């Protein structure tokens, strides 16, 4: 039985609200680009894809770049284990996402928008294409959009090729250009040198949806939600040991314990915040808040109850990274294998504490020396699970004196 919550049950203050397509576009095209940028800056909107980069800064840099062509890319690759909120937005609230893409195009001066849709979401393709056609019919895409002379813009949907790394914005761009999905060197950043070498904004689905609401209701309104540093609300994809998994809209600043109550989680031992690349929190940390300044996340929340073996949980994550590393740079390519081997040593009860500590140190190097976000975040689970669940994992069996 599917216990996931349904659209009719969804409630939220910012995104899961009534909205009719085109409202924000029409308002936007009657405004100055600078004024829209100002509203977004006022809203303090940060990227929802994980890294939390201020949206207004990204847009301003792209708007300021001099180029004959610019692009908007909507990152709908949604490959982080345990997230499915972008799927919900695209399936149930496409008006928010696409309107946001049109507004982005208007502000930075792009004529083309591209949705990079996760391969597994191919089943949505036909209905999304229909939706775009409907927008064209209403002059929300195409030429002189919303009656604004000279504002031509259209959106194309491209299917991803099924690798987690392709969600990383520069690897995504490589993939769009038909190359192997590998992260690029940065700087220069996509804002100046992106798709086909042109200035490109890459935003998460949810970030773009927020833009629509900001243009509709103003930056001040948006900022009234959430905390001072994490404004607005956030979609959380909740999975694991709880009665009501699904996508929830909650204001930033919500305590983890509050969220657990809302989703009906009991006997919770651990919460993985931010998917495989996130951090794993133990009970004593459940009063921490979900916010960029505290426990930040692109939206994935995995709940584990007392029956779960945290070493297995960790092993799953590490297997994921060994599989998904693009294999380009040394720290991530070999480092993840070494971390996984470490987990297997613990599993076999054939390890020394000093070696595990060496692996943690290695993890810290991976966090700073890997080429892209994948390798920079893959040791997070390793380090946090081994630290927060040390007693369970390292001190079981022979009471801590195990190993060679």
């Amino acid at each position, binding site marked *: 039985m599917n216990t996931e919550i349904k659209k009719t049950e969804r409630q939220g203050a910012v995104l899961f609200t009534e909205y009719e397509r085109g409202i924000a576009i029409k308002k936007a095209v009657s405004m100055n680009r600078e004024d829209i940028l100002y509203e977004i800056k006022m809203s303090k909107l940060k990227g929802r894809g994980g890294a939390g980069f201020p949206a207004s800064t990204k847009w301003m840099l792209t708007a300021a770049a001099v180029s004959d062509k610019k692009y908007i890319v909507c990152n709908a690759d949604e490959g982080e284990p345990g997230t499915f909120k972008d799927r919900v937005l695209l399936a149930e609230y496409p008006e928010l996402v696409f309107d946001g893409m049109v507004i982005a195009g208007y502000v930075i001066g792009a004529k083309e928008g591209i949705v990079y849709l996760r391969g597994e979401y191919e089943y949505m393709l036909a209905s999304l294409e229909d939706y775009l056609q409907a927008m064209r019919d209403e002059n929300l895409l195409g030429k002189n959009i919303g009656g604004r002379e000279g504002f031509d813009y259209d959106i194309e949907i491209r299917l991803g090729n099924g*690798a987690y*790394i392709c969600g990383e914005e*520069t*690897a995504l*761009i*490589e993939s769009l*250009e038909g*190359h*192997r999905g*590998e*992260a*690029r*060197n940065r*700087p*220069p950043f996509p804002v100046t*040198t992106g798709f*086909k*070498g*042109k200035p490109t904004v890459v935003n998460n689905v949810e970030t773009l949806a927020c833009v629509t609401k900001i243009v509709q209701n103003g930056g001040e309104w948006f900022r009234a939600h959430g905390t001072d540093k994490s404004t607005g609300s956030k979609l959380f994809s909740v999975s694991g040991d709880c009665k009501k998994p699904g996508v929830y809209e909650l204001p930033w600043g919500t305590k983890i314990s509050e969220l657990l109550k809302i989703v009906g989680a009991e006997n919770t031992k651990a919460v993985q915040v931010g998917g495989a690349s996130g951090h794993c929190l133990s009970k004593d940390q459940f009063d921490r808040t979900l916010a960029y300044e505290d426990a930040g996340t692109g939206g994935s929340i995995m709940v584990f109850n007392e029956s779960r073996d945290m070493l297995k949980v960790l092993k799953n994550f590490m297997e994921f*990274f*060994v*599989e*998904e*590393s*693009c*294999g*380009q*740079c*040394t*720290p991530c*390519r*070999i*480092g*993840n*294998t*070494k971390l996984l*081997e470490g987990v297997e040593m613990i599993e076999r009860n054939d390890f020394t504490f000093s070696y595990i500590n*060496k692996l943690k*140190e*290695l993890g810290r*190097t991976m*966090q*700073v*020396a*890997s*080429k892209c976000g994948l390798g*920079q975040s893959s040791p997070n689970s390793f380090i946090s699970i081994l630290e927060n669940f040390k007693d369970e994992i390292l001190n079981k069996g022979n009471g801590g004196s195990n190993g060679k």
Partner: protein
Amino acid sequence: MENKDRRAPVSQQPHVVAKPEHPEHIGGSVSIQINEKKVTVPMGTTILEACRENQIHIPTLCHHDDLCIAGVCRLCVVEVEGMRTLQAACAYPITDQIKIKTSTSMVRKARRHILDLMISEHYGECYSCVRNNNCELQSLAEEYGVDSYTFGHVQESQYKIDNSSFSVIRDMDKCVMCKRCVRTCIDLQEVGVLEAVNRGDDTTISTFMDKDLADVVCINCGQCINRCPVGALHANDPSDDIWNAIDDPNKHVVIQTAPSPRAAIGEEFGLEPGHSMTQELNTALKRIGFDRVFDTNFTADLTIIEEGTELIIRLYQALVEKKEVSLPQFTSCSPGWVKYLEHFYPEYIPNLSTAKSPQQMFGSLIKTFYADKAGVDPKDIVSVAVMPCSAKKFECNRPEMDDSGYQDVDFGLTTREMAKMIKEAGIHLPEMPKSHFDNPFGEASGAGLIFGATGGVMEAALRSVVEFVTGNKAEDIFDNANIVPVRGFEGIKYVELPIGDKVGPVPDLIKHLVPNWDWLKGATLKVAVAHGTANAKKIMEDIKAGGKFSECHFIEFMACPGGCLGGGGQPIPTNEEIRMKRAEAIYAEDESLEIRKSHENPHVIQVYNEFLKEGPCSHLSHKLLHTHYTKRGKYIA
């Protein structure tokens, strides 16, 4: 900053900010701080460049001066103030007033970790490795004090060695995944044989469908070998067989030495690049036990006569007899280039000169003309060639190269392998006394010598052609007979030479082929020179599109950047500065010689008088000195 000229994946292209033309203008430079020291650098300078200019050493592995940036090994990481993560110095173009620290504890730890990781997967032992003592991984391990296997060490081989190729051997157990070979092959050479496949720790460098190197479009240029930091790629070394031949009293072992190895081999003995060791090498080779030492330049001179005559015939047929002939004529002395053309432009095989390369001309002369003269049975001759080139190994094994009745050249030996043999014989080359080449081929001209540098074949040909046609001395037309416009390392050179209204008499050697030069009066000879197959490709595409190069008469192509002196068998490391110095050594040696034109080489004339009596491009010369080619295409079954 899309660069349409490159085939490298964008992730491996230099996304560097274009450097300003005038860094001294306002906004052209930026002030930064490296380890507390304030310096000013042009916008777009990478952190690595900035550090090098200020004598701060940054370890690198995937970086190579000849190649676009990869930023994958991460050994060059440094701290940039205000940034959460470390930055790869090789891949970071400076545009802001950043503060850099190059040796903090975080940086040192990271570098050591990265080395430890590489070594944990590196299967190979230094003492049984061709790169022992010239290996970047080995030196880095030493530099960072690696004294144990922190993260374990592979205990057994993971990959099968691919020794299918006559030229290049791949030992992926030693690969550190720097992708220099990939970038070399696809970007520098535009061949695209090697690519990274699989993901994560399973990532390896592979060929199309993981086929053997001998069964893909590899042109054997060996440029990937020269840029591999470790022993994962090396040439197919025949020196054991050569030792056996030397040790066999029944074998008459002769060796020819090409000009480029002579200009570079000193580097293998610790000399600075740019010292020619020609005559020292003669002595060393004799002491090792070679029975005769010949100068490949001799057959380079012969090549000029044969190839030049062929060109004249083609022009005569086209202009006077109005026949359908393939022009421009392409040079054929670079076997890497020949194979490139056979794979990628097989429809242009008729444009290739049928003249063999100097190595192969010598091969067939040694086992015929020389054997006869010296009274040795050709079956007892073992013919070795010291070449700057790995493709020469493939060339001498081409099945058609047996015009003497035997395999014309038995072994192609690279400069590196030659140096190894010399060391093995206990000889320190720079200390050798000088001695001359052996007769009957004696010394050769400077024209043959400059074959080693890009533009050299063209210059040698022009020195002769100009004299043949105008009757004037090359020196009267070009200062000191140095034809400077075809020299230098520019990727593609194009030169027009108006012949004028005054023509001379047809020289005796080719009198039977053309009656006079009147048909060339007022004509303009158009020639071009390209080195590196990426540049060759540009010319070929232009010819296909009917561009200006399709109107050329003669084009020199060399597979390797810089020409033979940058060949895949030359000492490692290589970069433009080193290649430049080798070129200087070659041109200096040319100027020091008395005879600097192929047709003035008395030994060449003697060969035509005594042996190839019907002259160049005659029946016998066709049999021995010319060859044919194979349409290969891009896909090999």
